[in-house]
């Protein structure tokens, strides 16, 4: 699909076309934070930001989601019967989503839509009805390391369109049929613009100086890695909060509960966290991940060992750096993984 060009001041025209079918959301500044917010085509879009504080994970996998509802009256013939929820009422478009966050959706597709018999209908509904218009990264943060986990500042996976910010213009790269349809009326980009975008890609990649090595982790057996001596120390400063998992675009542990109030009942799904002892606490009282060490090890083993084995090499991390910048005790995923990758001496 040929690349297109768009004057930045005309971005609103593209958004107007998009808004005919889609409800628009984009990163906006809120004090010193960057948050996802509903926007109108005429709103000024933010182009100078590193990434949103919270990832857009909640658009597909909300922190609290009603799965079903029921009438809480056992004596009523219509009572206690689960009713289906309506799906998304209107398609959505996430504008200026960063490549790592779109890649995270692609990774989670492998989890939530693994095969036809176990597809998560709630995830699928929102995924299929959400258009992703990405914005390539010009100035990666010091905590970004996407290039070492199958991603990058111009990565295209999961996106319908990729925008590259060329100061007063945007290079527009349609990537799917929906992306092509949306951008059909734009003029083709000239070679100079395409070259400038390619140069920016190289610069952005070069600006990412930290990374993780995964070769030894990949070559070991699960048990060898599980017993890596590094796990004796990594957990020490962790306070087992939910910050890293809630901010992570690929963490997807959840809990399901029924809640009732008078005549009304609902079945909800909420984010949960492998860092919480309660997450794996059995009714019997036994807890297979009873210590902090077990829980911290789980988070990293899951992303960097179990997921690649189960999901044909896919890594459960896209290198966005949120867990590192938000962790209250500076547990840095890069240091953890690099320690996991160190050789095991006898």
């Amino acid at each position: 699909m040929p690349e297109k060009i768009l004057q930045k001041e005309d971005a609103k025209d593209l958004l107007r076309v998009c808004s005919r079918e889609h409800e628009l959301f984009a990163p906006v500044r809120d004090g010193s934070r960057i948050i996802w917010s509903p926007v109108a085509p005429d709103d000024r879009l933010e182009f100078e930001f590193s990434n949103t504080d919270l990832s857009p994970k909640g658009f597909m996998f909300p922190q609290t989601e009603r799965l079903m509802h029921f009438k809480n009256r056992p004596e009523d013939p219509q009572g206690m019967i689960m009713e289906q929820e309506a799906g998304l009422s209107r398609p959505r478009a996430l504008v200026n989503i960063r490549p790592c966050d779109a890649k995270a959706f692609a990774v989670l597709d492998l989890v939530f839509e693994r095969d036809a018999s176990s597809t998560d209908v709630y995830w699928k509904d929102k995924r299929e009805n959400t258009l992703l218009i990405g914005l390539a990264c010009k100035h990666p943060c010091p905590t970004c390391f996407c290039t070492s986990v199958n991603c990058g500042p111009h990565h295209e996976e999961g996106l319908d369109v990729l925008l590259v910010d060329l100061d007063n213009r945007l290079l527009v790269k349609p990537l799917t049929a929906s992306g092509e349809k949306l951008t059909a009326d734009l003029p083709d980009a000239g070679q100079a613009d395409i070259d400038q975008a390619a140069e920016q890609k190289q610069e952005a990649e070069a600006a990412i100086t930290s990374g993780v090595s995964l070769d030894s982790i990949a070559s070991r057996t699960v048990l060898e890695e599980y017993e890596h001596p590094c796990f004796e120390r990594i957990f020490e400063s962790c306070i087992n909060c939910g910050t890293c998992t809630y901010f992570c675009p690929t963490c997807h542990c959840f809990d399901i509960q029924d809640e009732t109030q008078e005549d009304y009942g609902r079945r909800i799904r909420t984010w949960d966290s492998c860092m919480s002892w309660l997450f794996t606490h059995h009714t019997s009282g036994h807890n297979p991940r009873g210590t902090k060490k077990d829980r911290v090890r789980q988070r990293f083993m899951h992303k960097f060992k179990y997921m690649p084995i189960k999901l044909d090499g896919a890594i459960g991390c896209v290198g966005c750096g949120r867990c590192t910048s938000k962790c209250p005790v500076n547990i840095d995923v890069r240091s953890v993984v690099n320690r996991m990758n160190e050789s095991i001496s006898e």
Partner: protein
Amino acid sequence: MNDITQQIRTTARRLLEEKTVDCVIGYRKGTVPMQEEPYFAYSPEEADTLVWTGFCVNNLANFLIKRPGRNAILAQGCVSRNIVGLIKENQVQRENVYILGVHSPGMLDAEKIKAQFPDRVITKVTEDEQEILVQGWGFEERLERKKFKRNNCFTCTHRNAVLYDEFIGEQGPGTGGGNIDKVAAPWEAMDSDSRWAAFEDAFKDCIRCYACRNVCPLCYCDVCFVDENNPQWVGKSQLDADIYTFHILRAFHCAGRCTDCGACESACPVGIKMRTLTGKLEKDIREFYDYQPGLDLETPPPLTLYRPNDPDVAG
């Protein structure tokens, strides 16, 4: 490297070499700007990585709870007071902890510093007694240190450790200079409707990650009331009622125990100022019972005993 860092390393090294303790709990340099990492040094070599800066914003007393062995711990005023509290509450044995007292320079608020450079990337921050040097992509700027202290450090009442086995460096000024009662003042000036509105506004962004709870040395219950599921007191969703219940109950559990160390606010990933609640309780405890938590090992905490002349606070 500052002088205190040097002295911490020398002392930690000696304690480990002489096997006075099994471990020294302190901080080492963080991997990102404006964040140091709580660190457990077991050997003299590891002791040489300890640091003391304005970004040591956790409360290390938290790590003593249920910790085996004999540990040395770095403690400025608030942290030493929390250690005293833990000893009084039988969570820590006095003989198992070797307190390295220190004076607090007034810890810095990374969010306040970041707010000065909203659309720029900060790569390195260093400080001396007067100034903070912020470096980032394409810029370098100096800030006046005292303007960027955390709110709780402005109103600190005890900057020097109150209980210690050894003091590192010199004792410094005792207070932060600010008026601690001002934290409570906004609530006191409001009628109940505007108070509720202000409360809702203050906690609207909470994602219930529980970092504020887990980082706090007061929160050591085996099963926190929010985690109880038989019966389940608090729901798991983002319903306002559940979020508010958590915050109100957490704050009340801190009454007469909170040292205003500020670790909760520093930990919060969405910038919630939950000290506005504990600050009001701190003032009430001080006024009603003439008590400040953790100043000595003898005075019983007011909410653990009944006295006939207790003030009638409900009235």
